[in-house]
């Protein structure tokens, strides 16, 4: 008999995962389900609070990408104020967003994914972590730590705190940038760019060794969604939504993000608390789409910065149409790091960046607001309704990892079908399941951090519902479910 699913009310996305693999009569993998078994309730307990509190409150959803929630929330609040925020305020928000993108991507690539890439999918699990990387490839590990520090440091310099800075507020930011800080940040960019260039060069030399993983890691046709600028360029802060199909055709473009509910709908599956968003015109599950670095690089016309554009051209050689294997999220992430660093220099050297006019003040002028931005993991939507006094009445959040839910499930099924033969679960399988989920850098891995492993629970279920085999990897440090 299958064991009861334990619900840990820890975090919305981060924390514990469970996978169930269903076998057919011949013992072959029929289907696999990736369960997100946690519930957080942010949409509910924000009700009745002043909307001006939302950016900081919503940022508490995540300790890795608090800046994305800050920004999506502040943008939704900008709409409630119904103001145009000062240009410098917007540049400063963008700057912090870029810094976060760098640190989050660095965390995903170096701390979480690089052990698999460097030491091998089947290497000793005891060493397959950042410390193993430090031992085997100290320069690479140092680069990763340095790059993450770079991003975190800039967030602190701008907002006063590395995690959960309260600096991004409805209407702009709460304090302008000083010339000293600007120079301080500018001085650190070249080193970070060198690290990023070095890493992508190294990565391009090794990723082809992973042909079998590339072929099976969620390598299937799907749609891709993300924001682009008016001209179709890579956009991380603001833009219009674009959908692309697997052949690289743009099937919908310049969609107004605030109208998201017209083309995104969410399906519910009984086995997961995480909803399954899909592209409405194509229905569920055909309208399954992916977001995040891979999707962003697929859908954009170009990046708009020289080094990133050169890398993008090379990236697009992988496959005609859209790049389909989720394994290439890693590659896309590295290109985005370069893009972010190049963009940071542009904002920092902008003549208006030191302007003191960084915030627009107003009361609640509109009773509904939608804020959409690109988080490191993909498109993030905050949608609020307030009463005339400015108190929250209703909130709907679609988190980046949620968009990828259907694709993650299909990815798990694909990996299971390829690697599970018979009724046993080899360790390498567990790790590959972990690794396919990890390519998406879901907030699940946020909470398990670099040391230790994702607490996974894999069950093999026969057609009659009996449990054939089970493998469990507990959270050795007991940190998996900690709310950050």
């Amino acid at each position, binding site marked *: 008999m299958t064991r009861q699913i334990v619900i840990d009310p820890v975090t919305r996305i981060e924390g514990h995962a469970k996978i169930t693999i269903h076998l057919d009569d011949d013992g072959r993998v029929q289907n696999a389900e990736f369960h997100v078994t946690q519930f957080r309730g942010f949409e509910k307990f924000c009700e009745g*609070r*002043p909307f*001006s509190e939302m950016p*900081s*409150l919503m940022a508490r959803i995540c300790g890795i990408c608090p800046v994305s929630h800050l920004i999506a929330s502040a943008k939704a609040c900008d709409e409630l104020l119904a103001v145009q925020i000062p240009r410098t305020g917007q540049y400063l928000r963008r700057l912090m967003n870029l810094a976060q993108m760098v640190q989050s991507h660095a965390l995903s690539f170096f701390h979480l994914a690089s052990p698999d890439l460097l030491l091998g999918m089947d290497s000793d699990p005891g060493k397959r972590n950042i410390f193993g990387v430090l031992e085997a490839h100290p320069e690479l590990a140092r680069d990763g730590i340095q790059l993450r520090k770079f991003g975190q440091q800039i967030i602190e310099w701008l907002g006063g705190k590395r995690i959960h800075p*309260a600096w991004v*507020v409805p209407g702009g930011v*709460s304090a302008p940038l000083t010339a000293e800080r600007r120079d301080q940040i500018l001085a650190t960019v070249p080193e970070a760019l060198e690290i990023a260039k070095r890493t992508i060069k190294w990565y391009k030399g090794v990723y082809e060794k992973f042909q079998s993983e590339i072929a099976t890691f969620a390598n299937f046709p799907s749609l891709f969604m993300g924001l682009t600028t008016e001209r179709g360029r890579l956009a991380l802060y603001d833009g219009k939504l674009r959908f692309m199909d697997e052949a690289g055709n743009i099937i919908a473009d310049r969609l107004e993000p605030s109208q998201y509910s017209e083309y995104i709908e969410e399906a519910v599956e009984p086995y997961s608390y995480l909803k399954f968003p899909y592209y409405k015109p194509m229905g569920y599950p055909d309208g399954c789409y992916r977001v995040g670095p891979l999707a962003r690089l697929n859908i954009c016309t170009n990046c708009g910065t020289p080094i990133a554009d050169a890398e993008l051209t090379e990236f697009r050689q992988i496959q005609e149409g859209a790049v389909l294997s989720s394994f290439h999220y890693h590659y896309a992430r590295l290109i985005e790091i370069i893009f972010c660093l190049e963009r940071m220099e542009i904002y920092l050297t902008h003549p208006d960046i030191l302007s003191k006019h960084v915030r627009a003040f107003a*009361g609640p002028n509109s009773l509904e607001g939608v804020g959409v931005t690109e988080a490191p993991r993909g498109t993030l939507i905050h949608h609020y309704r307030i009463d005339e006094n400015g*108190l929250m009445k209703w909130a709907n959040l679609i988190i980046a990892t949620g968009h990828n839910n259907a694709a993650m499930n299909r990815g798990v099924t694909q990996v299971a079908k390829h690697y599970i033969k018979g009724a046993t679960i080899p360790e390498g399988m567990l790790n590959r399941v972990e690794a396919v989920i990890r390519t998406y850098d879901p907030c699940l891995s946020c909470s398990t951090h670099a040391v230790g492993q994702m607490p996974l629970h894999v069950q093999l279920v026969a057609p009659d519902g009996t449990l054939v085999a089970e493998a469990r990897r507990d959270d050795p440090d007991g940190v998996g479910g900690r709310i950050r």
Partner: protein
Amino acid sequence: MASAAHVVTLTIDGRDVSANADDTVLEVARENGIFIPRLCNIDGLTPVGACRLCLIEIKGSPKLVPACVAKVTEGMEVTTKSERLDRYRRVILEMLFAERNHICSVCVSNGHCELQALALDIGMTHVRVPYRYLRVGIDASHDRFIVDHNRCVLCTRCVRVCDEIEGAHTWDLLGRGTNSRVITDLHQPWGESDTCTSCGKCVNVCPTGALSIKGHSVAEMSKRKQFLPYLTLMRTEK
């Protein structure tokens, strides 16, 4: 030289100090740079001895006494710091935190809050009594200000400043015990109050994030406290 007759000498934490006979121990301690925690008390308003954080020990008395209302007497020996006092003060703080919903990380007054500062000062790392999660609301009906009862500690500074300094007496207390609330007028929404002059004094004396200026984001609400002794002084001199 009538005032000379009213000078008394006493010791606070072993230090000899002199004071006017109508001074309170808290005033004398503060004049002499001796820190005694306080929450309901504020310079410029009548003390009420409500929060009990300024409890002190007086030699010869088995009871603890709130320093804000204890008048000095000749030869008094006061202790402001002891293990026993720390214990009492900490329990009081813990109960204040447990009574309503003080969520510093998303509070407008984070970093500028007297309750938070006192907890930090006393080294309160956790709360040992169960939280009550009282369901108390927010009144955001006023144009400029918000009252968030989740953060209110019922110090009544707002009630006193509105009555004694502004003269409007918009604020008052409703109910008893944990059902107590600060209310405007006869428990009408603040925005509908006829008596409120929107002067903002209540907001500035509020020790926590209970009263704040509308539109302020998390950690942005710092209070201006200096105005109060100044106003009191100027009005007395006239």
